[in-house]
């Protein structure tokens, strides 16, 4: 008898687990009463720099369509990516999702998990270069951009450049020469904020225009396991550049104690003059040091030839619709609104954008930051290339640490490149890509 009681207890325990399990999968859908106002849930990055603008978009959308948008925040980076992958696997997706465009998005099995928008009228308004980053390669279009296009290169202090009589360098050698002059003036030529190790990657990532200029097929060959960083001199240059600024004493002291936020302050105040970064840093500088934002400019990371000089563009994050949504029409209205003239106007109502949009005919106000105007010059002159991560699905997860190794000269550029090639190989195998 007593024994039965205990066994029963154990079963209750197991049952509890089971009930919890069942409840979890059942409760994942939208439980709201259909007679209530329609609502869509948007899983979005926490701490988005342009959150105010997005809130304005949501507000304008709710006012126009009478549909509620509930934003659920998630972390960025690998942690957030894992969270999304987990929720896809658990059939626990929200109605709409924001995600990085390009390779990160394309590994999510777009056709199976997201709604194809290529037959919607909105698809005609998107730039081809953007569509290439949200397609499954079979003509489907699975997301719309909600951000300006960031450009990677050198964020620099124009005031110091004027004071020292420097001109924009078109080659890496000129860049080093400028840096030596800045150093002689007692300022930090190149800001290294390796405490936030992701920032160490920019000299490589933003160098991709130069890689593509000398090896137009690099992305394709790299994806097919035919080209490597270590045996492609143009690609190896990125690691060499990171090491060179250290070896020549051109970076700040305490790079391992300097954060992204510290770097913003340094470049804004002119204590540091060059910051290898992308234009997404501008919103942060503007928020913290609005009085100095007009001192900040942008130029492309120079390569070895002045004839081929251009900026590397990141593609904006996208908003997609999950296939599991029960509010497909409302979700479609929402993504359509995001790229409509009203949507863009609402987005810009919170402040001038820090780049141009991947939407045809989008008009930028005259109040954009001077650095954004610098970027627009490259775009207008068609001197741009997309960053490698948008052209190839493989990006080794250890690139930040490997770049720090180069940046502190712990290893040679070649060793770093070899190490990164192995990291890439691991990623390609995990993705089960052909040819690896």
């Amino acid at each position, binding site marked *: 008898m*007593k024994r039965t009681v205990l*066994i029963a*207890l154990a079963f209750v325990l197991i049952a509890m687990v089971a009930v919890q399990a069942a409840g979890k999968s059942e409760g994942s859908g939208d439980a709201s009463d259909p007679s209530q106002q329609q609502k869509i849930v948007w899983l979005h990055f926490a701490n988005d720099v342009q959150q105010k603008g997005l809130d304005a978009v949501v507000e304008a959308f709710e006012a126009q369509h009478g549909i509620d948008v509930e934003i659920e925040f998630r972390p960025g980076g*690998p942690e957030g990516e894992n969270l999304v992958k987990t929720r896809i*696997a658990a059939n626990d997706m929200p109605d709409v999702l924001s995600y990085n465009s390009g390779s990160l998005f394309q590994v999510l099995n777009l056709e199976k998990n997201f709604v194809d928008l290529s037959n919607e009228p909105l698809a005609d308004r998107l730039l081809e270069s953007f569509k290439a980053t949200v397609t499954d390669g079979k003509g489907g279009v699975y997301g719309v951009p909600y951000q300006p296009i960031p450009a990677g290169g050198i964020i620099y202090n124009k005031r110091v450049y004027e004071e020292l009589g420097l001109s924009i360098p078109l080659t890496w050698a000129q860049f080093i020469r400028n840096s030596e002059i800045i150093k002689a003036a007692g300022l930090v030529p190149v800001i290294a904020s390796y405490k936030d190790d992701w920032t160490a990657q920019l000299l490589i990532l933003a160098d991709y225009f130069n890689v593509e200029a000398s090896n137009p097929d690099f992305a394709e060959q790299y994806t097919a396991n035919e080209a490597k960083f270590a045996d492609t001199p143009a690609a190896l240059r990125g690691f060499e550049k990171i090491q060179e600024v250290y070896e020549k004493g051109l970076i700040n002291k305490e790079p*391992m*104690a300097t954060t992204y936020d510290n770097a913003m302050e340094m470049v804004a105040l002119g204590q540091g003059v060059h910051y290898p970064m992308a234009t997404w840093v501008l919103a942060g500088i503007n928020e913290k040091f609005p009085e100095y934002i007009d001192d900040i400019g942008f130029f492309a990371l120079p390569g070895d030839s002045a004839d081929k000089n251009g900026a590397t563009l990141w593609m904006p994050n996208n908003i997609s619709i999950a296939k599991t949504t029960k509010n497909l029409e409302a979700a479609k209205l929402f993504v359509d609104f995001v790229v409509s003239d009203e949507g863009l106007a609402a987005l810009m109502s919170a402040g001038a954008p820090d780049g141009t949009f991947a939407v045809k005919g989008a008009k930028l106000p005259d109040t954009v930051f001077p650095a954004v105007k610098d970027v627009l010059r490259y775009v207008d002159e068609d001197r741009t290339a997309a960053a490698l991560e948008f052209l190839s699905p493989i990006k080794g997860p250890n690139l930040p*640490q490997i770049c720090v190794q180069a940046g502190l000269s712990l290893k040679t550029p070649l060793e770093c490149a070899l190490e990164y090639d192995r990291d890439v190989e691991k990623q390609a195998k995990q993705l089960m890509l052909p040819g690896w």
Partner: protein
Amino acid sequence: MSKSVQSLYTYTFLLPAGVIYALFFLAPTFLSFFYSLTIWTLSEWRFTGLDNFAIFLSEPSLVIGFRNTLVYATVSASLKVVLGFLLAAFLTSELRTKGFLRSLIYFPNIVSTIAVGIMFSSFLHPSKGIVNVLLALIGIDGPDWLGNPSIALLSVALVDVWKGVGIAMVIFIAGIQAIDRQYYEAARIDGASSFDALRHITLPLSRSSMNTVIMLAFIGGLRSFDLIWVMTKGGPGFTTDLVASIIYKQFQGGFYGIATAGNVILFLIVSAFAIPLYRIITKKEVDL
């Protein structure tokens, strides 16, 4: 003992514990041996033999984790043993403030590792942190404790000692207090100094506490993850990566098979040290 009394100790009592422990600890441990041999996405897997282990043993960024883990565990455990013993010997002598000092030194133990990591990240800041500011007062130009690849690992190990020396001390105190006072009386009559007493009485008779501290500190050190993750994230580069932080990074990168192989490797390393220690414990239990 009668058979009927035995019937009171029914194995049914083990069932609830058995279900939870077997399901949430033992089963994953056994599964890890299989999944460490695969490329795994959680929903699908592909068998790859020992590839994952080969990766772990060949990539410089992963191999460094073994060396670091052993260095970190050895440094932090040996300092905890030595300092913990000396503190215990000192704080079992007649002192007015010993109760206060024991609590003070023990206190970091109950503060979370994340909080301790944040605190010491600022103390060890190369130019503004109090450690280097104090060193500057006596004319020493302090290094970048967490940014200099050759000392970052040791810096974190020292913080670990700061946080954990209290528990070592407390275990030693318990051991020392169990020593019969008569030994000390006899030694004093023989004219032995207090150092002699420490060396020839306290130290040998604290053997069993010593074993406990070594085991706790060393195995804790091998498994350590949170402090290093908060303070350096394994950097600069990979110079302070431990096996446990590598596992986390592989997990973050979505390399579930490799992460699990790391888990198995950590399992083997810990077992290599734990099995001899297990013998010591079981032997001690017979003594009790």
